């Protein structure tokens, strides 16, 4: 069975590729390309966390720490050894995966919130190590400046080039995840998530697959960190603190646990909703209140609205945006003969 069994999904996957690869760069200004670039980076990170939390059922709140591992690995390789991103990108991911395996070891004995606390410790320990090892954190204030990525001698520095760079990585990540979750490994993850004792009885090595889950998830996180580093031109530990881990958790929960498309939805939603709220408030709000008052209160109002909307979506559909989308799709699939 192929990756996209139905003709309609083959067609829509193709249409989406055309949209993002050809149409978007042609019609969009730098502003919108930047938004899509940020979403592309977030998608990779959200996919990684969804593999761990959504598919394998292991709760981690140290996701951002693995991003910093990837970021600093790539930054050091790029500045000290002058390596191209084709090497630093997987290297950052692999380094994060190696650390991820170490952090994943407690998952063999503890579950649920207890594991979450263990990964929280990883978040702080990794941050501390980076800050206190000049050989890792390099320059001033633990930040390393990195030049923009180069491909075949060409520096990717225009917004469009960077957008393509990020988009290609994100698309590869999406396709790889889609394949992973229907492979033997992916099914083992789901079995462990649903009932680990039963999984062990039917012959799945829980030990092995839990560590796989951590390694793969951390690999994605590491790659996310590398992408941030190249996109922003700097690796800085302050970009990968606890709050970022929480943001990614929000992405996969709102997008839909255990779904590839849900990770993409979540990345879009969490990245763009605050911006959408701000735009609406800036423009509509000025019709009601003085601009001075508005400027001073917009950020508080935005937080309230953001929280309310998240609660709203989770009440409407606790299984996330992906389930919402499936409901809509199923409705139209049989429309107009729904009975």
């Amino acid at each position: 069975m192929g990756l996209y069994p139905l003709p309609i999904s083959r067609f829509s996957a193709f249409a989406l590729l055309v949209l993002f690869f050809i149409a978007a760069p042609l019609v969009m200004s730098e502003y919108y390309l930047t938004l899509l670039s940020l979403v592309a980076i977030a998608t990779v990170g959200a996919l990684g966390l969804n593999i761990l939390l959504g598919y394998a059922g292991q709760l981690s709140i140290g996701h951002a720490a693995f991003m910093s591992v990837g970021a600093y690995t790539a930054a050091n390789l790029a500045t000290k050894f002058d390596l191209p991103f084709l090497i630093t990108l997987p290297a950052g991911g692999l380094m994060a995966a190696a650390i991820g395996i170490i952090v994943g070891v407690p998952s063999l004995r503890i579950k649920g919130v207890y594991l979450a606390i263990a990964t929280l410790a990883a978040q702080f320990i990794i941050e501390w190590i980076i800050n206190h090892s000049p050989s890792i954190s390099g320059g001033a204030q633990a930040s390393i400046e990195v030049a923009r990525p180069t491909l075949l001698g060409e520096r990717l520095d225009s917004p469009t080039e960077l957008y393509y760079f990020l988009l290609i990585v994100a698309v590869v990540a999406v396709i790889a995840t889609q394949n992973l979750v229907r492979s033997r490994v992916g099914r083992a993850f789901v079995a462990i998530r649903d009932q680990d004792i039963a999984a062990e009885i039917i012959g799945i090595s829980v030990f092995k697959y839990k560590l796989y889950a951590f390694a793969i998830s951390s690999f994605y996180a590491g790659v996310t960190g590398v992408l941030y580093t190249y996109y922003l031109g700097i690796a800085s530990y302050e970009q990968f603190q606890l709050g970022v881990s929480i943001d990614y958790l929000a992405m996969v929960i709102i997008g839909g646990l255990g779904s590839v498309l849900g990770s993409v939805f979540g990345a879009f939603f969490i990245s763009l909703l605050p911006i959408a709220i701000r735009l609406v408030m800036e423009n509509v709000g000025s019709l009601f209140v003085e601009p001075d008052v508005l400027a001073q209160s917009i950020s508080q109002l935005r937080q309230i609205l953001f929280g309310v909307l998240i609660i709203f979506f989770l009440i409407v559909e606790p299984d996330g945006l992906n389930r919402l989308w499936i409901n809509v799709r199923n409705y139209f699939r049989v429309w107009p003969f729904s009975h």
Partner: protein
Amino acid sequence: MKFFTALGAAALAAGALASQASAKDIVIGMMCDRTGPTSVTGTALCPGYHDYVNLYNKQGNMGECKINAHEIDHEYKVPAAVEAYQTYKAEDAVLISPYGTPMVYALVQKMAEDKIPGTSAGFGTALAGNGEAYPYMFPIAASYYSQAAAAVKFAKDKLGGSLKGKKIAYIYYDNPAGTEGIPVLEKLKPQEGYELRTFAVPAPGVEMGPQILDITRRYRADFVISHLFGRAPSVSLKEFKRAGYPLDKILGFVWAGSEGDIQAAGGNEAAEGYNTMHFAGVGQDYPVIQQIKDMYKANGKGDPDAMQYTAYYNRGVFQAAVHIKAIENAVKAKGSCDVTGEQVRDGFYQIKDFTLGGLLPPLQITKKDHEGGGWVRVFQVTKSGYKPVTEWYRDYRHEVSELLIEEIEKAAKK
């Protein structure tokens, strides 16, 4: 779906209205954090910024050119700051001021590519003051290097003109920003002949009893230089007080001495004597603050709430004043409101004798030195507020610039 379509339509319609209204304004992109981890600073700093912009627009010193400071709250998140930057760029902002160290780093390269100048007062490293490496970023405030050097000078004056054989303790928040003062203190140690010990306070900085006992009982420091952030300064003051250490022998760096810190330490009575360093004047004893008060009064309103937090409110005024001065210089040079980012950058170099009655240090921004000279002023906490105990000053400039050159070379070698 309908809901989103309606929202989108409303946004588009209103967007068209809004952009028509502000066609003539000079846009400043002003990032802010009112709701994130540094909201204590942002909720006072950003109102200060807006108040000065409004005051300036009301005074009409630039004729028909009006300043429009577009604030975006990025909650101290880097992706949100990147989005905000692009929003400003699409609005043709001539100056963009990132808020927060990681945001400054994430944008500095892009700003140079796009030729849009910006400031980073109180953020980023001492290296960022190097105008040759970062032609479009202006820290305009004393770096931690300059603060450390000024702190040594202050300690020297306080301890009777010589530091020979004196014991100095440096207590700092254990992160990269916190450690940045150490190289300067180490460098000045041999020539001034003091003894130095450093005491790290781990995050989140609410537990430092052992360090302070160590400083006061075992090491018996003659002077304490304190580089703490967030909740840590107030906790340190309480602990020093408990240990019976004289607070006038402590000097806090620029993020360790706001009204919020003093209130949290038990109020002015409790913190009396504590010395705090600032890169913009504190207190309300400046003509420009009075003018802002008058502006509010003319509108039938009382003083804004944020104004009482003068340490951060005044920094907002300070930043707005420097930004607008640079724009004003560019407008004057060009003779029209239609200035570019490049011209505003040159405007920074022409800022001279502009202190707003002592609120601002006597900045001298040159092509090489974007820090503006590294000026600070020390204010001591009194029963009712602050009193200045020094003029605007700086010291050991030679040593600081030597260190900077070493660091730049190190960074280049990497």
